[in-house]
């Protein structure tokens, strides 16, 4: 592992030192385009190869419980109500009513106006950024499109933080990114990070959604990942779940490679969150393998890896029941939410 003087820098100084000047479009372009490219065929072949690992018996058991503890149980619908959120929180706390030993999920993820309801429903089980209990994540910054004035995006963030959100899932301005206005994307992330500050001065955890389905190329995904990390994101997240394709294994692998390289460069660990489209235990296990063999097993903790998912949890619970009882049950043996 390279030990670098960068490790001792403040995050904003670190970025400027790396970019070699102010975060202008030109400086950022020079930096981001200087990073080695990605060969799409090779990346996809590597992801497919990782997907062939055979995870059985005790390893599978561990994987199943780990997956549950890494899930951001999500509801992001226009039809969400306080009742729906309460139900989601109950599921997050007790995923399997038949097995009190079943771990809780990492967080619930809701729209900003539902944060208060989620916090209230969690009560004493609210982890509030800690490791005991369940955290509340809120999508913000005019999610999912991000098409709003900066002031409105920042108000959206402050509102959610004030209501008790522990984590903010922001979207980048994909239009600005694709138009080459890297400075604008960078500045927005910096501003959102600042808006994550609570009254006591602490910061809500910031996840930066790249919406990889709209960035289209792996090179773009890699550059957007570096940009988000340079600007101070704590997590990089693939997708909103509202655009297809959402998370894929090759995209997640390319982001994990960035996170690994950032750690190699600065000693700082950044989290990764694939979101959308991961529905089965089998798929989720492929992600665990990819994390383990790319950045290392220490990333398999809620502080550094999350699944953004809703239907995944029930498939994992069915697998868990199968491993406990030896029998397959069915969808009526797990709760709908």
């Amino acid at each position, binding site marked *: 592992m390279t030990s670098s003087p960068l490790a001792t820098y403040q995050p904003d100084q670190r970025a400027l030192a790396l970019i070699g000047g102010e975060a202008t479009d030109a400086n950022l372009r020079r930096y981001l385009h200087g990073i080695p490219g990605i060969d799409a*065929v*090779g990346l996809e072949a590597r992801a497919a190869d990782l997907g062939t690992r055979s995870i059985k018996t005790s390893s599978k058991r561990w994987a199943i419980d780990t997956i549950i503890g890494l899930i951001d149980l999500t509801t992001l619908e226009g039809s969400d109500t306080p009742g729906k959120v309460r139900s989601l929180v109950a599921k997050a706390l007790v995923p399997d009513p038949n097995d009190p030993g079943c771990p809780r999920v990492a967080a619930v993820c809701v729209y900003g106006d539902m944060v208060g309801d989620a916090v209230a429903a969690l009560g004493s089980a609210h982890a509030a950024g800690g490791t005991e209990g369940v955290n509340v994540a809120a999508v913000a910054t005019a999610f999912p499109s991000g098409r709003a004035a900066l002031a409105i995006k920042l108000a959206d963030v402050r509102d959610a933080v004030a209501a008790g959100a522990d984590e903010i899932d922001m979207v980048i301005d994909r239009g600005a990114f694709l138009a080459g206005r890297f400075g604008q994307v960078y500045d927005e992330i910096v501003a959102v990070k600042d808006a994550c500050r609570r009254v006591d001065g602490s910061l809500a955890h910031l996840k930066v959604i790249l919406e990889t389905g709209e960035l289209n190329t792996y090179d773009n995904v890699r550059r957007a990942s570096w940009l988000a990390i340079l600007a101070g994101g704590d997590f990089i997240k693939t997708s909103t779940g509202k655009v297809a394709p959402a998370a894929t294994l090759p995209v997640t692998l390319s982001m994990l490679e960035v996170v690994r390289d950032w750690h190699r460069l600065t000693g700082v660990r950044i989290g990764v969150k694939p979101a959308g489209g991961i529905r089965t235990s089998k798929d989720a296990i492929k992600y*665990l393998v990819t994390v383990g063999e790319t950045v290392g097993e220490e990333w398999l903790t809620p502080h550094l890896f999350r699944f953004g998912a809703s239907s995944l949890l029930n498939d994992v619970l069915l697998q868990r029941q199968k491993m406990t009882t030896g029998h397959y049950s069915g969808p009526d043996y797990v709760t709908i939410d």
Partner: protein
Amino acid sequence: MKFLDYAPAPESKALLSLKSDYGLFINGEFTAGRGTPFQTINPATEQQIAMIATANEADVDDAVSAARLAYDGVWSRLTGSDRGKYLFRIARLVQERARELAVAETLDNGKPIKETRDVDIPLVAAWFFYYAGWADKLDHAGVGPNPAALGVAAQVIPWNFPLMMLAWKIAPALAAGNTVVLKPAETTSLTALLFAEILQQADLPDGVVNIITGDGGTGAALVNHPGINKVAFTGSTSVGRAIARSVAGTDKKLSLELGGKGANIVFDDAPIDQAVEGIVRGIFFNQGHVCCAGSRLLVQESIHDEVIDRLKRRMQTLRLGDPLDKNTDIGAINSAEQLARIRELSDLGEQEGAQRWSSDCVIPQEGFWFAPTIFTNVSTSHRIARDEIFGPVLSVLTFRTPAEAIAKANNTPYGLSAGIWSDKGSRILAVADKLRAGVIWANTFNQFDPSSPFGGYKESGYGREGGRHGLAAYLKPAVRSGSRSINAADQQATPVTKKSASASKKSASAEKAAK
């Protein structure tokens, strides 16, 4: 236990029913060999799998006679489309029995099940499917209209891809209308003998393919036999030379696919993570037992340290162990003899002053194993930069300019393969144009496809396998009177088989091929 110490996930051996003794496959039947039988062992455990017969000169003579009889009596009289039907049938049977063949190959060769399952056996089927399609299109093979088969082909194959090499040899030979006597390598005869059972299942006319086992003496008797028209050999350069000498002065056609010391060239603008994957695939695929392995890494000096750092990190995730475990990346070395050679050359590398590094992996007690190893600070004059090691050992050299990369890549008596890693398409084409290697991969390595010709320059041999070129190696331009221009009565003829009734019961796809 850590998650990355994945729990054992062994492939089941239950599908496989092996005999304790295997005879020679001559004229459609298994017969006892007249030489002294030998044992074939599992290189991962050193346990005996089965006893294999040795063919002596009389057995070789029988096999060649059977092939000649089948050529004159049946195979040369069939239409191309009828030969194609047999090849399609063989391809389907290989697919049906793919898992069984994969397990057998892994047991006998020591290579990991994920490679036999995902690479070897699928390519075997692909080769038969591909050449099945060619059988009735020989006019387009590039040797003029109405090309003729050569006759009886003697084929000697190596131990590194036993069944795949068999397919590379047999499929084009049969498609072109030749009959075959094939000798698998001494240490890996098992899947060739299972393949013989598939030929019985497919009702291939007797004698069209004969498989004889034994050591180098059997191989020499075969290639020296006066009754053959073609010799095709894949193996070491020294044996290839001896064959070329023995064939000289005869009218036997010869193709040789020999050793290599492939250069894998990584430029400073390469997609670095994929290049590291390509380096790993280039040298650690099949334990480095690959004639076209990228055994010399030529990396641009400006990114040398970064590439080596990433490569070492990646190598730490390679899993060495039980080849039948589905998560094994590096299997066993095929034989004690090969292991000794790898050790000898690696020790020499250290003595010559190169810096040795191996990944941390636990070497099992039984069997033949060698940890994935790289040598840095290697000079072009070092033996490990010149000799083919044929094991999981990479020699790393550096270069400063494209011209130096080309000069170093070409500075070898071999010329089989090379790889180029760069994001710049024009550079890839310019460099590829100047490399003297039969196969050049751009931003990938060790990819095989039946439609792509494969073969070498210089001491890597001559002749091409695969694609249209591979077909031409089994054809001659002149029309042999009576062979292809067959009359209507012959076209209606159904090949004579002794065991069609029982065989068709065994195979779901066994309708009469020659209807």
